[in-house]
């Protein structure tokens, strides 16, 4: 293990240990927070009893739907905007201001439009994620070195061949960054929406437990979501490292 990794683990363990002690000694009251060890055991019981299955599936499906749409739409939008400089000049300022809009304010509107089902939260997750994908697609396409495009012309490659054989692989690292951000943003959009108003899902269950003063379930679920996001992120990170190693980067 690298020193940095060791340090990170040590800091994390230290923080958890500190919270545990504060909770156990009563410095943090039980109705505010339960000790991490109890969060874990409570989560274990929920998982063991199979009580999370339905909500977890529902949330993950919604995240997948939002994410897929965001990646596809974001990539296509990025490619199209990149190809038309005039549209680019119009869109650029809008894109850079995009994340100052609190997308959640539109949530009630989507519920009115589509009803209290999974569609509104998928739209919110999509809206959160799509701009990150678009911005990073543009960024990636901008950074394809002109000399690589000239090289494609020397090899007399057509538009399609140039796109697939030169532009895509050259922009790939930036596209991957877009995907990573889109994963995080679609999670935030979906779980956040569930928390505000919905008929099911992990975010909904956290809200439900909160309103019923059920700290054990609430903290167990928070722990679960943290763990889930961490695993997804670490897998993406490992995958990215593998892809970069395949190009000879350390």
């Amino acid at each position, binding site marked *: 293990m690298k020193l940095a990794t060791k340090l990170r683990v040590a800091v994390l363990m230290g923080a958890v240990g500190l919270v545990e002690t504060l909770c156990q000694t009563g410095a943090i009251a039980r109705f505010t927070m339960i000790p991490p060890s109890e969060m874990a055991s409570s989560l274990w019981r929920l998982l063991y009893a199979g009580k999370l299955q339905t909500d977890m599936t529902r949330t993950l499906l919604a995240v997948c739907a939002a994410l897929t749409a965001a990646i596809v739409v974001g990539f296509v939008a990025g490619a199209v905007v990149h190809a038309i400089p005039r549209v680019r000049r119009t869109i650029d300022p809008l894109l850079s201001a995009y994340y100052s809009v609190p997308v959640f304010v539109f949530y009630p509107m989507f519920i009115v439009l589509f009803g209290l089902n999974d569609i509104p939260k998928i739209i919110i997750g999509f809206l959160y994620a799509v701009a990150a994908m678009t911005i990073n697609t543009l960024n990636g396409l901008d950074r394809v070195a002109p*000399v690589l495009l000239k090289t494609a012309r020397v090899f*007399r490659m057509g538009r399609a061949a140039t796109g697939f054989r030169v532009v895509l692989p050259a922009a790939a690292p930036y596209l991957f960054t877009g995907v990573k951000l889109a994963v995080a943003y679609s999670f935030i959009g979906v779980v956040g929406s569930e928390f505000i108003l919905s008929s099911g899902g992990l975010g909904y269950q956290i809200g439900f437990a909160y309103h019923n003063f059920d700290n054990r379930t609430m903290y167990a679920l928070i722990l679960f979501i943290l763990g889930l996001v961490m695993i997804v992120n670490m897998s993406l990170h490992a995958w990215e490292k593998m892809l970069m190693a395949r*190009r000879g980067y350390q």
Partner: protein
Amino acid sequence: MSDAHVALKGVTRVYQRAGQEPLEALGPIDLDLSAGEFFAVVGPSGCGKSTLLDVIAGLSQASAGTVSIEGKPVRGVVPESVGVVFQDDASFPWLTVEDNIAFGLNRQGMDAAETNRRVAQALALMGLNDFARAYPAQLSGGMRQRVCIARTLVLQPRLILLDEPFGALDQQTRLLMGDELLNLWRKTGATILLITHALDEAAMLSDRVGVMSARPGRFLEIVETGWPRGRDSTIVASPDFGRVTGRLWSLLRAESLKAMQYQTGAARP
């Protein structure tokens, strides 16, 4: 129509720039390269050497004048018989060295056996045998440039355009690579146009050296070296070599000063 391999008549290139006045980068240029000739281009930095290469290759349209290769006008499409090595690193970072070198052959649909044979030959020629499976990120700048040279050579072009291909190499390796290039030139009978900022390299390798003025680049003079076809780097020791490089420098000194002053803003063209 002349029977020259490459013929340029009254070629200029003006870059249109948004919100600024157009930039005259090149010309007018008249130039005939005969088949199998080794022609070098030297000139002060920013004088339009790379622009000249782009225009000849068909990567950039001449603003005036005509370019023809093997008697056919060049417009917007790079002729099949032309190979180009660019000044900037153009290796594909997502491909191994051997896949980079095979890229053009694969595009042409060359069969695997012949592809492997040519790639192996090019790897050996460029001293890249130990790096066949490496990625460009694991190589030095000079080695990446050699990958690009190899990628061009395996296609056996009849006209090879090289833009400062040895720029990232140390002096000794440059001389050796120059010898390799001469061998290759003799063996293949290709026509070579080599852009370089090294006067000794231009003088040692070529039949003729075109000396360009500061921007917009025109040919001030085309210096004949008079070397035999069987020359190699040992020629640098001959008294004629000193004569040629001396001539190149006396032509270039004033132009390089001019170019330097434009760049530092001390004078405007």
